[in-house]
């Protein structure tokens, strides 16, 4: 037998006037400039509320909004007279947004492809999402020419449309290399993948001539960048894995050495028998503390 999970809201849905609902926070002003905000406003205009707003009943009989601040804004802008609302048992607003599992671009792509396959018109999707039909087409073909291993690697990462545009220009081996670098640096931005594309070897690209023209760099410049990048990246990959551990064991070691040298008997022993160790121990202790300072000041 499983215990029943608590239902933390009233099962009766209320239709409230948007004016009866008090926001629990003020939306940051820059939010209204964002594409997502405009998309939400437009989707509410096209389809209405899909999920209800969530409110808490207050002692004075008013309702405090817990979830759906932008959607309430949209309803007010449109002059809507009522909104479907769920009344929560508690009055915290943290859980609603904290527990959202964001859709990675690759998942978004799959969802769009499936919807189109099942006969949803491109135009209808474009309208509901407030984007141009071309954007829907781009999303549909986002993974064209991308190696399967790369898709697997990036399937739940925030790698954007631009990432795949750039990856597509590379041959599969290089695609995988770049995807691994992005994961290891935890950097999925367009500028990063552009830099990695620009420093790819000509033999790693499908259309090397096209790229060189687009970047405006000379062949010599490119060759130099490529050489540097390749050698650094090899060292980097090798050391990255052990660096965190090494640094910390070193700090732990320096602390231990410091304790050793604080005991006159031990210091004297080293001075008499192993003066070369003593000097090096001292410089490692100093270096470890300098390292903190430089790391802190860097």
């Amino acid at each position, binding site marked *: 037998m499983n215990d029943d999970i608590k239902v933390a809201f009233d099962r009766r849905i209320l239709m409230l006037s948007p004016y009866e609902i008090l926001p629990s926070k003020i939306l940051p002003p820059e939010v209204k400039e964002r594409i997502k905000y405009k998309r939400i406003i437009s*989707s509410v205009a096209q389809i209405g509320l899909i999920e209800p707003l969530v409110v808490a009943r207050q002692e004075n009989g008013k309702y405090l909004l817990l979830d759906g601040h932008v959607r309430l804004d949209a309803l007010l802008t449109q002059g809507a007279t009522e909104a479907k609302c769920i009344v929560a048992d508690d009055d*915290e607003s943290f859980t609603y947004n904290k527990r959202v599992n964001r859709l990675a671009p690759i998942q978004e792509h799959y969802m769009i492809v499936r919807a189109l396959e099942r006969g949803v018109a491109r135009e209808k999707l474009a309208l509901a999402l407030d984007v141009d039909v071309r954007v829907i087409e781009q999303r549909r073909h986002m993974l064209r020419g991308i190696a399967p291993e790369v898709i697997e690697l990036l399937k739940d990462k925030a790698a954007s449309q631009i990432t795949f545009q750039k990856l597509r220009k590379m041959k599969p081996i290089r695609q995988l290399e770049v995807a691994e670098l992005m994961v290891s640096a935890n950097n999925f931005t367009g500028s990063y993948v552009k830099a990695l594309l620009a420093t790819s070897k000509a033999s790693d690209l499908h259309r090397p001539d096209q790229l060189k023209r687009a970047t405006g760099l000379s062949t010599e410049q490119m060759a130099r960048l490529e050489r540097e990048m390749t050698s650094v990246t090899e060292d980097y990959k090798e050391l990255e894995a052990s660096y965190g551990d090494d640094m910390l064991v070193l700090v732990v*070691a320096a602390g231990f050495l410091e304790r050793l040298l604080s005991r006159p008997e031990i210091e004297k022993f080293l001075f008499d028998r192993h003066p070369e160790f003593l000097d090096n121990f001292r410089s490692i202790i100093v270096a470890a503390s300098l390292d903190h300072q430089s790391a802190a000041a860097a």
Partner: protein
Amino acid sequence: MTTDAPEVRMVPVDAINVLNPRARNKRVFQELVNSIEHLGLKKPITVSQRPGRARYDLVCGQGRLEAFIALGQPEIPAIVIDVPEEDCYVMSLVENLARRQHRPLELMRAIGALRERGYSHQEIAAKVDFSVEYVYAICYLLENGEEKLISAVDRGVIPHSIAMEIARAKDGEVQQALALAYEEKSIRGNQVLAIRQIIERRNNSGKGLRERGSRSRSGGRLVTSESLIRAYQKETERQKLLVKRATLARSRLSFVSTALRRLLADDHFVALLRAEGLQTLPRPLAERVNGRVQWS
């Protein structure tokens, strides 16, 4: 009020078709399951049922549905509407895509807001299903404007206890705090690397986060050769710096290990250590000295 409010019904979980499933981050999903188990379901899912049909199509709430299944629940509270399958696809996409991403700071302010409404740390912890220590740490970081640390805690990069230590520590002490945490095994080596990067950025450019918008706008710009070289140089610099530090750290460490190994082979030295009560090497160091950790 009007009478056409939709109703919430208990719907059997095995009667719901997920039309357009998506893969999800496992960690975030597990957190959702835990949250639902402890706090209950906060919002009904939405399903569509066509007249005369027994089964339902999911419109939104795949995560909540899967969490209920994982928790062994036969039924889930659902808002039942009646729309064609095609519309289910559209609504489900809209619900997933027309959704604002909350900055960690804005998210965490919801905890700060509860504090401002007069709830104690204990009361807040019970409301959001986090430990009292977590709530206390978040309130402390909020009060001190530690946006980078809040963001790191929210993403799970830094444990909240360590973030508190970092926020309280003076610069030189940060490294020691990290080393201690590492020795106590509360954080792993590769996490330390990520934490160091955050600390360095925090020291470079302050505690605040850059406006998110500025980055996405520059992302849309055309590639110029200068911006390209700059981006590339930044990346190479980052890698070079790490290689330099890593090589140095490795050579120092291997010196310490070799020296200690030789000293420990000397009975006289071991006797001295014992007399001073220093015969036990810190564990991570002992592992290196005994060679149990292989160099790659």
